[in-house]
């Protein structure tokens, strides 16, 4: 892998993805082997939006690699409140740290920020845009449960604003995967994402649906996202679709025995709690995979030729 930043999953080849997943598997098998790998390394956490899993898993990952984190804290308590631009914030914090993780409500924020810094920058969510590190842990979980080739996956819920969906869909075009997108009409994939998927995939493996029933029996994986009530223009419109996109035990009667159910979390009522104890549920495993996958990502970004280049060719090995 040779990238200075991780901004979108579009930038990753199949080889890149496999490198990250393989490294994550090595780390997962023996985390202690990398416990001192990045001592004296500081990761800057810049979260302009609330986050629990992403932020804490990056923090855990850096610490388990022997490094540490500095955290901007909440927007309310930062210089952002004084009107500082994102471009200035990242330029200041890059001087304190060896790498940055950025979450920001604006689409394209990570692309822009990466143009102002030399340290590696990971996009941890840019508005409704992309969330590539989530995609890596999603792919890791899929590979563990169902394999990445000959995969039939249903991706259901808020496809319009769901950045995890956009990133995952792009990444899956590197594999032999049939992707079924299931959502209410009002929350279909953005036309830009469909345009890209057709460019990347030739459109062969992409279908859009409004009903899960049409495709459920054929699925290896069902990736569920929250229907975001706050996105609907009125409550009635939300109520029309909300119940149709909930998974209960009765829903699964039509599913294959090996169906894996995933969710980037947090969930509200998309997946009934009774599912948690079944063999279908992989969403907590998925969340736990965030740590080894982000350890692998940070390790690769901080150790590759790019790091050597940034230090004038001096290797850290």
């Amino acid at each position, binding site marked *: 892998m040779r990238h200075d930043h991780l901004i979108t999953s579009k930038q990753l080849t199949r080889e890149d993805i496999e490198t990250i997943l393989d490294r994550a598997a090595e780390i997962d098998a023996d985390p202690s082997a990398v416990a001192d790998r990045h001592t004296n390394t500081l990761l800057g956490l810049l979260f302009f939006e609330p986050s629990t899993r992403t932020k804490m898993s990056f923090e855990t990952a850096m610490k388990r690699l022997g490094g540490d984190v500095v955290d901007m804290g909440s927007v309310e308590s930062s210089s952002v409140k004084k009107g500082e631009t994102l471009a200035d914030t990242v330029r200041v914090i890059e001087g304190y740290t060896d790498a940055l993780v950025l979450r*920001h*409500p*604006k*689409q*394209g924020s990570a692309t*822009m920020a990466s143009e102002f810094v030399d340290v590696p920058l990971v996009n941890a969510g840019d508005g409704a845009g992309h969330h590539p590190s989530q995609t890596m842990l999603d792919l890791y979980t899929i590979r563990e449960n169902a394999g990445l080739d000959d995969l039939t996956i249903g991706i259901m819920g808020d496809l319009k604003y769901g950045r995890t969906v956009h990133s995952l869909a792009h990444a899956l075009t590197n594999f032999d995967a049939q992707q079924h997108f299931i959502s209410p009409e009002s929350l279909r994939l953005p036309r830009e994402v469909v345009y890209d998927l057709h460019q990347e995939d030739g459109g062969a493996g992409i279908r859009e649906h409004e009903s899960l029933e049409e495709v459920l029996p054929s699925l290896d994986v069902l990736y569920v996202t929250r229907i975001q009530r706050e996105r609907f223009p009125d409550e009635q419109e939300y109520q029309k679709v909300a119940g149709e996109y909930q998974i209960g035990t009765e829903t699964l009667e039509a599913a294959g025995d090996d169906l894996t159910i995933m969710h980037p979390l947090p969930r509200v009522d998309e997946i009934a709690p009774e599912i948690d104890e079944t063999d279908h549920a992989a969403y907590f495993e998925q969340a736990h995979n965030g740590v080894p996958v982000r350890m692998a990502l940070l390790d690769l970004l901080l150790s590759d030729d790019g790091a050597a280049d940034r230090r004038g060719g001096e290797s850290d090995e």
Partner: protein
Amino acid sequence: MSDDHNHHDGDDHELRVSKIRSGTVIDHVRGGQALNVLAILGIDGSEGEEVSVGMNVPSDRLARKDIVKVEGRELSQDEVDVLSLIAPDATINIVRDYEVIEKHRVEPPEIVEGVLSCPNAGCITTSGEPVDSRFEVLEDGVRCDYCGTIVRDEIASLIDT
């Protein structure tokens, strides 16, 4: 020779839009787009530029076309290329001493920077950051390099004036 510098379309054009001595004539602009051409070139008259505009004049090729003449200014290739977004049929005539000394068609560029505003209110380029807009030029539109938004119609409405 452009329509306004020969007699192909008749002398009535000469009455509407006078000849220039030296500068650029942008011909075969789609009818109604002349003011957008000026906006893309950043010409608003405030610098004292001498500009002549003909709008919706008859044309053999386009039925109705606009013509823009800018006295004393030869457009750069970058400027000409950006014009292709809203005037894909345009011909550019460089005039010196009342003679057309160079004439070429516009070619779409791969990227346009700092010319169009992203229509996506959620795009970082609309947030007061110190960054120019940047659009990839597609076959049938433009695409924001930052947020990915694709615009196919109404590109002229994105011109950052």
